[in-house]
């Protein structure tokens, strides 16, 4: 019953070598999501932050993804070209282990919505350096055969009483008319 189809996946590609640490993405994101639009700037409200350690030459823009109640354990440390990065430097999960991607006033998680109304997310528009680029990828998607309402109901009855009992009941009821 399963077939294949196409779907559009929106992606922000990050070229870390091109980040100059300007944090314009943070400023633009916070401005776009302000009400009224662009009326206020505040990087700590941004859904993208540049995790930065200048003395280690580390600049990683990360985008807020999903909220989780618990932090992960067993965090790794990666060494790339002699520079040490914490795994958290690449992680967009909004978690309680760090003060990141929580609205500074309400404490609620801030999730990236890729600026849905815009042709490109604002962070990308504010990055002429080309560290952030927006791409729409077409991905093949396996479509699972979907069950209808009646099938779902019958399936649960089968699960509960067994197929034989259900068939007997169905036969008896139909004879009665």
């Amino acid at each position, binding site marked *: 019953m399963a077939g294949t189809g196409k779907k559009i996946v929106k992606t922000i590609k990050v070229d870390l070598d091109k980040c100059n*640490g300007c*944090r314009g993405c943070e400023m633009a994101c916070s401005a776009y999501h*302000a009400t009224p639009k662009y009326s206020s*700037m505040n*990087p*700590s409200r941004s859904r993208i932050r540049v995790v930065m350690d200048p*003395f280690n030459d580390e600049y990683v823009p990360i985008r807020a993804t999903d909220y989780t109640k618990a932090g992960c354990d067993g965090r790794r440390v990666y060494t790339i070209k002699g520079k040490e990065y914490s795994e958290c430097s690449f992680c967009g999960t909004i978690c309680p282990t760090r003060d990141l991607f929580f609205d500074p006033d309400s404490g609620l998680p801030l999730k990236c919505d890729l600026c849905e109304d815009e042709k490109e997310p604002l962070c990308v528009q504010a990055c002429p*350096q080309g560290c952030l680029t927006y791409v729409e990828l077409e991905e093949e998607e396996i479509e699972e055969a979907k069950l209808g309402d009646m099938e779902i109901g019958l399936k649960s009855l089968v699960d509960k009483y067994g197929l034989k009992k259900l068939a007997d009941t169905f036969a008896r009821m139909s004879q009665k008319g």
Partner: protein
Amino acid sequence: MRYAETGYNLEIDLSTGNIERVETDPNLTKLFLGGQGVNARIIWDRVGPEVKPFDEGNLLIFGAGLLHGTPVVGCNRTSVNTINPMTGIFGHSTMGGYLGPEIKHAGYDRIIIRGKAPKLVYIWIKNDKVEIRDASHLKGKGVRETTRLIKEELNEPFAQVACIGPAGENKVLTASLEHNWNSAARGPGPIMGDKMIKAIAVRGTKDIFVAHPQELFELCLKMKKEIHASDGCGDWMATDEDDSFHHNNFSWGNSRTRIKNYWSKELQERWTRWKYDHMDRQMGCYNCPKGCINIISWPGHPRFGYKCYGKDTYHMSAFKELNYSYELLGYCQDYGLDSYSTPQTLALGIELYDAGILTDKDMPNFPTDSGDRIKYLIEKVVHREGIGDILANGSWHAARIIGNGAEEFEHNTVKKMEQLPIKLGKLNPAYYLMIATGEKMAITQIEGSFPQDPIRDVEERKKFVEHWDAVPSQIFKDIFMKWEKRDEMSIEDTCLVTDWNEAMHYVDDSTGLCGFVSSFRGQFGGKTAYSFNNVPQIIKLATGMEIDKDDLWEICRRNRTLIRAINNRLGIRRVDDDPPKDHWAVRNPELEEKLLDAYYDLRGFTKDGIPTKEELYKLGLDYVADELIQRGILDPDEGTPSQEAAKKEQQKSGGC
């Protein structure tokens, strides 16, 4: 509601531990904009001439620019003002990076620090929570480690830290305040050390509001793309590897020796390889798409970041090549030393040793190699050991302390501060005026909106003028069109050019804009991002304040005059408006006098270089005039040089 600004200052008294959040007067913004402008007003009000730089009463003010925290691109330079212990006058100090915008987001337009802590502390500001914290464990630590430790112990990776290294702690007068790869020289370093502040760390999570959101944001987004693509913005030295200009024309050692044909193709190739084989990236500052800061990891040595001419100063003081600077810069930045004044002072030490004025008694085991000598002296200066304790005061003071003829060797300072090591032939008027009367003590004083050299070819000149967007009025195009020889510009034109150059610098210093997208790049024509033609509109969109070109020009004049008055109160007079002794092979004392008189006329200064009562009243600085008169500095009846001359004429004819 205040737009662009927060409307609050943070006042910290280290002697009493008192911390206050103080509402500011919106009128000050109208009069002085922000940044250095408002800082100057506070220093005028609260730091009288009786206060010595190392007194408790001296202030250290971290001033965010008026447009910091708004979407305005390339606006990130923080003005850190104080009375500079090296010059004894108003310290002009600005640095790039992220500090100013962060201060704004913490809810303040500036941080004003007075007093002295009883022991080494650092200041931690997170929005309304402000702490003076013990820093005894950071004593003697370098900039890198200090920054890392503070972020770690606060558990605040997003905090912005500005700190001093051991040089600042030891009150070395050529010490700087460091913030990532940016530094604020000319005052704040030793003052931090004296006030016993190792660092300030700031994190802000508050909003900055603007008056006309949509318009401003769209304009800035467009400008960001243009600035990124434009050759007319940013530091061209970050991309142009031909640095023959500095190496062939500037003087090496203690600003003494020119090596005219130093630069060669082979050398350029070698140096280019050294740079790009070891460059991690090119960095920008807050909300700026340019990459002016070159980040280099030289094998076996600490990483460093340099801008512009900063890569040349150490090897030029030691007669070495670029790799010598690359070895040294990581350490010097970690010590927190100003790469501008320090190498010249060290080279003076070498010269005095070679001349026999300093001996092995002063410098035991002094190496023979010039590179080793500079390294030897750096260690002494940073820790103020032996001869280092004297050289730590900069070349002007050091030469006078050493005496015994050493004074003759100190020849490249203005108002007691080291200048670019330039040697020129004939005196060129515009340059003379700017360096002589300047009160910034920095390169940005002398380079500005107007080109330093004429274009010989008339067609080229026309083309230049046609595409010269930054020009505020036709007058400057006319001046440029008739300018043929560098040293031949009329006195009147020279004054107008100086006025424009200065005004644009004062725009930057009050709004927080960087000269590399503004004042400094105007001289190369074409497209610099900011000028008198668009800054008023940008200020209006951000703040809601009605302001036009003339208003902005008047604010700059007011700021410049107020800083002059602060310095007059501290003793600056005409005699101090003097360029380095041997900047020019051929001087022209008669012309120089005329130029100074004409400049004072233009500025509304008296013959002795003090703003007249009339001028001060016109600018709304009547309280300044009254105080200068009361202190006996200003004669209320004295006018500008030409007004005085006219009076004399009148008296003469009246006597007939």
